[in-house]
């Protein structure tokens, strides 16, 4: 990876954190516990279908060079 790319990533990472933190501060108390009813619904879960998603990731990971790597879990080869 060249230095230019590294610099770019660092900037992007910084930006994400700054955005997230500033957003957090702005919204600090904006969503009260009793307002989180919708957020608690199963369809709103970040991984709303974990089994099938795991399978899909495995398939993508064995067919694509840039897939995977977003979760720290390890695994097999799947190199057919």
């Amino acid at each position, binding site marked *: 990876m060249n230095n230019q790319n590294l610099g770019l990533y660092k900037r992007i990472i910084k930006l994400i954190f700054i955005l*997230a933190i500033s957003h957090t501060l702005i919204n600090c108390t904006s969503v009260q516990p009793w307002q989180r009813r919708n957020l608690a619904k199963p369809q709103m879960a970040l991984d709303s*279908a974990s*089994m099938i998603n795991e*399978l899909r990731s495995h*398939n993508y990971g064995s067919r*694509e060079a*840039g*897939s995977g790597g*977003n979760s720290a879990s390890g695994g*097999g080869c799947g190199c057919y």
Partner: protein
Amino acid sequence: MAVTKQKNLTLNAFTAAALLLPGLVVPSAHAADNDEMDFQYSHYQEGKRNIGDVPNSKNPIEVDTIQGGAKTSLSDRVKFTFKYTQDTWSGATPITTAPLTFLGNNPIQTNGVITGASPLITGRINVDKNNNYSPVQQAGVESNGIIPIYQNNNQLVHTLSVASPETRKQGDFKLGYEWDEAGLDVGGGLSVENDYESRFGNVGGYFDFNQKLTRLNLGLSYTNSDTNALIDYDAQTYIDKNAYMASGQLNSTQNGLRMQSNRQDWGSNIGLTQVLTENSLIQGTVGYTRSTGYMANPYKVMEALFVDPNQPPDLINPLGDGRNFFGDGTPANIVNADVKAFLEKRPDLRNQVNLGSRYVHYLSFLDAALHLDYHFSNDDWGIKAHTFEGDWVQPIGSGWTVTPRIRYYSQDAADFYKPYLVINQKASSNSNNTDYQKLPDNYSSDQRLSAYGALSGGISISKKFAKGVTLDTGFEYYTHAGSLKMGGGGEADYANFSYYVANASLKVNLSALGHISGSSEHSHHEHLHSSPIPAGVMFGHMMEKTGEFMVGYRYMYNTEGGGMLHGANSIADKTIVNQGCGTTDKCYLTANGMNMHMHMLDLMYAPTDWLNLMLMPQFVDMNMSMRKLNDAPSGGMQNMMVPAMVNAGMNTGGVGDTGIYTLFKLFSTPNHRINLTLGATAPTGDVALLMRHTMGQSMSAVKGIDGGFYDYGMQLGSGTWDFKPSATYTGHFDEWSWGTQVNGTKRLENKNSSGYALGDVIQSTAWGSYSLLHWLSSSVRGVYTYQGAIKGEFNAPIDKMGPIDYPKNYGGQYWDVGFGINAFVPSGNLVGNNLSFEWLQPVGTQVNGYQLNRDGALSATWSYMF
């Protein structure tokens, strides 16, 4: 009334707040609410590849995957998760890429008609020196009939090779502890396949803050993987392996040339999830993965065209009249290029950075959620990849949820990716050459490293039943194409392919079931305690309450080895050679050991108190090792085929036959029960599994010969509809229980689609069991089994090499003694779970013809009734 309503609203709001927030878990006494078991089956099927002008008769890659897992709370704050995954794949996959003019897929002819292709990866072609050595082919001759006319042909094509069936097994676990606003997970696992073993460990944690509106995730993982791959026996002689021989990664072993190397991966990620509004949240992740070691694929080959720069253009002006040109009149400078094949090489270091983001929005007027993902990855191999995905999760009432999804992926090519290499040097003429030193440091023609895009779309449908059972089914179609690459410039369309995946899963929430009334608990206790059934006995239990369900998993392992038998006696190799394969044929090899694993899902429902319905899908995988028989005749084809088969062994696996049964209660008193089972197995297991086209071009005498069927015992099912009746008596008194069963298998057809039928089976068994503790019992069992020989025979070619290839060498009479234990959970959250094991030890064997002796069988069952 209004006050009550207000109270309910407030209560709901606070309950909701205390519930699981997506990604923001609130640990509490409700932890046990997440105790669950799940099963999943999926089928991956690729479409046939286009291999140019030769028909592609090879079945494309297909993969069957089963997965089972359990998540349980060891205490309010401690959770344990275990998962088992097994996939079996087989089919044709590209091993390399070459110009079409090279005819890399060697036509196979049957009665003068081209019916298929076998791989051909070394030879010589013509290239045009005036046009960057682009491949040319003769398009005809001039009217004088002598001077050839050439045309450029830059068309590329994959060379396909069939991968023998292979099974990968993976077990992994995770142990988690949760505090009020934080959690820590430690996990690990092992993935094992014939040629690759991977061990991994990980640690992850989260921390909630800002009134649980924000979560910080951290993860670290380490993977250590060994490649131990047998280089394709048929291809050994014409793949240049000198680079790896020199590096010491390729070693000669007793049973062939093996790639033995190691790879290590460190992965890390950090993520931040933020609740934005009462209807939306966002997540951002950054990951970094560092991989070192051998990252190439030991079966992929790079084609290199060696063009001698000092070579006189032998096809210019052959008649001295200056005429030799392309069809359009352009003068040609046609020279020869030697095509050589090299095991691919990839850098031994890869740094990959991943950025991910996810936005989830709730649409209240539809009660639906929209999930939007974007993922970017970049590595120092030069691969930049973008992934976009959108999922629409739409509940439609009565527990149904429909989720359509669409995904787009695009990547650049790796710096060292090329469809094939052109080397402007002369190729060595001897085999002990240093041609590999003329190549770049790294090279691969694997399409996964090419520039392309992929578009996929699918739908999942889920139904949540009362009692905490959820059924899911899904389908996805995926298409890979160079033209789909973002911004254009992707690989040509020869590399395009598509696949679909269909899956079904069952999830059982144990704690939801455990909360069902105390009478149910009593019934589990009463029922399971009364008459434990040894793990190897099927159809022993019936549910006696209308509306009850049972879900179970059954595993059976059979192992054979320890020498060959004729009847009940050990037999010398010489006799097997002369008599084991009939009166005219000789035997050359025999089975040395065989292992069979069966995984069965057991689904049962009681529509009335006297009748149960049962569905039993099965999944099998088998492997067989072989040895050359002493005193086997030598010469001819066998000289080449015997070592090939002994080296590689045989592996098959996939979906087996599916059982459908009805159980009737004939008689029942508190201490005695008699059940009758009538059912059948549907022939869903494959009985036409073929060995690969074994021989490549090195064996010109048998070039393109089809390996024929795997032997009868390695096929995945019976291929016929089979009637399977059984009658079971069970009784118990105090701490003692006992039972007996007679069961049979009657083939309902004379032959299956491959031309034969397995023998009928009759089995009788009796057992006694004693309760050591109120939750634990042990059993002893005797079993007698009779199985007939195979009727008919394969209706298409099979390489008859040993006794296993002859129908008369199947079936026999078997006597076994079984030792088992049986445990059940009498109370608590996991009440109703039952676990049993049994080992069957052969005590007498009388086989038909010549067969491998038996070592024993293990059965394990888990069942849960609710």
